[in-house]
């Protein structure tokens, strides 16, 4: 057959067309992070799973990929995104108020392999803005507590004022069946918790490296050091999963920007197994 007779995709809407979502709730998390809760104005996107992201559109400004960070057990069609205001688009998104309408495309990407941790200890290590993409996995694990052994949440931030979701961290810890440890790079006199890199929390964390799975998210260099610390503790590289970030423009594998060597992060990721990605991360400027 010479000419391709593929019909245009069965969906009526092109994959680059956003759906309108209204901001129903907005909460400031720290000095430059906000959580937005969005509800569909009409059609909703397909259900999103822990680890996935959407492309959020600020009218006339642009789009950015943002991981889902909500409680997907109870969210329904509401989307929850925690966004750091660092550039033009994220600043515009964070400036949106309740009632404003944003654009959403998605869900895109793959998901945290939560089933791989069934019957095992689950260790979740977040650094800085790495905690929001882990939160749906934490909610899921806590809602299905019996499926897991120990659950350990380790979180590192710059200063106590930068920490996200402090109330929730305390709530999770107060459950008594969940270990939560937090460390900051530096602190003032009011802080009575740990100070130092988040990797310091790993040697003493209550999990069995022979029977645990780890999910790690944060700046790339933090994920690297954390993976090394987990491996030093005895966790095999095949049981460490990370979430990668790269420039994204389309989110659907058609624009080429998110390539990292042989992989397209929007299509094959953003969740990757550490041993598969490590050789790529070891090549500077790949």
């Amino acid at each position, binding site marked *: 057959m010479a000419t391709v007779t593929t019909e245009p995709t069965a969906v009526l809407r092109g994959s680059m067309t956003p759906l309108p979502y209204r901001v129903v709730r907005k909460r400031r998390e720290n000095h430059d992070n906000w959580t937005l809760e969005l509800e569909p104005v009409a059609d909703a996107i397909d259900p999103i799973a822990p680890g996935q992201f959407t492309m959020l559109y600020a009218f006339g400004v642009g789009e950015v990929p943002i991981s889902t960070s909500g409680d997907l057990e109870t969210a329904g069609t509401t989307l929850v995104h925690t966004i750091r205001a660092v550039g033009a688009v994220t600043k515009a998104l964070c400036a949106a108020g309740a009632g404003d309408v944003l654009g959403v495309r998605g869900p895109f990407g793959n998901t945290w392999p939560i089933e791989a941790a069934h019957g095992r200890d689950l260790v979740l290590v977040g650094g800085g803005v790495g905690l929001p993409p882990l939160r749906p996995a934490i909610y899921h694990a806590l809602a299905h507590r019996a499926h897991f052994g120990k659950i350990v949440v380790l979180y590192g931030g710059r200063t106590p004022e930068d920490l996200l979701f402090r109330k929730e961290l305390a709530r999770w810890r107060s459950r008594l069946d969940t270990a939560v440890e937090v460390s900051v*790079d*530096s602190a003032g006199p009011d802080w009575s918790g740990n*100070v130092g*890199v988040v990797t*310091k929390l790993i040697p003493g964390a209550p999990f069995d490296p022979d029977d645990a799975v780890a999910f790690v998210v*944060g700046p790339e260099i*933090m994920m690297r050091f954390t993976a090394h610390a987990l491996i030093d503790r005895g966790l095999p590289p095949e049981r460490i999963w990370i979430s990668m970030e790269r420039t994204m423009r389309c989110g659907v594998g058609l624009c080429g920007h998110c390539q990292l060597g042989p992989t397209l992060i929007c299509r094959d990721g953003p969740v990757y197994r550490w041993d598969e990605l490590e050789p790529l991360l070891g090549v500077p400027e790949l």
Partner: protein
Amino acid sequence: MSLRTLDAVIVESPVFKDLPHDQLELIAGCAQNAVFDPGDRLFREGDQSDTFFLIRHGIVALDTYVPNRGQLTIDTVGPGEIVGWSWLVPPYRWHFTGRAVEQVRAVQFDGACLRGKCDDDTALGYALLTRFAQMLVDRLQATRIQLMDVYGDRHD
């Protein structure tokens, strides 16, 4: 909570583990128990450093004062960890202030006494130095990561 001899506690610490019995005895000979209330200063930045501590219980914050930022905690040390290495190297001065964040129970070592014993028993000296060196390497690596300020704002 059972009462344990200093020997038993010391031998469990990674820094002293697997040392020969006679060296452990020498070290224990320079040790005594210490207790600090929350807020107590174990040592002060700039003071003569002749002691170091093996934390048994509680957390010690390492503080310094930074103009315009105030008192800053740059590290915390917890149970099983050693605080203090300035006693090993001249000019034997503390580089930070150590503050008990909560009640701290520690084994306090007389560094001057131990330095003397190391001068006499060079094998002991070498053993202690190599173990402290490992601890310092780990601390240095962790500090370097902290220095990278990875959670910071955009770097241009």
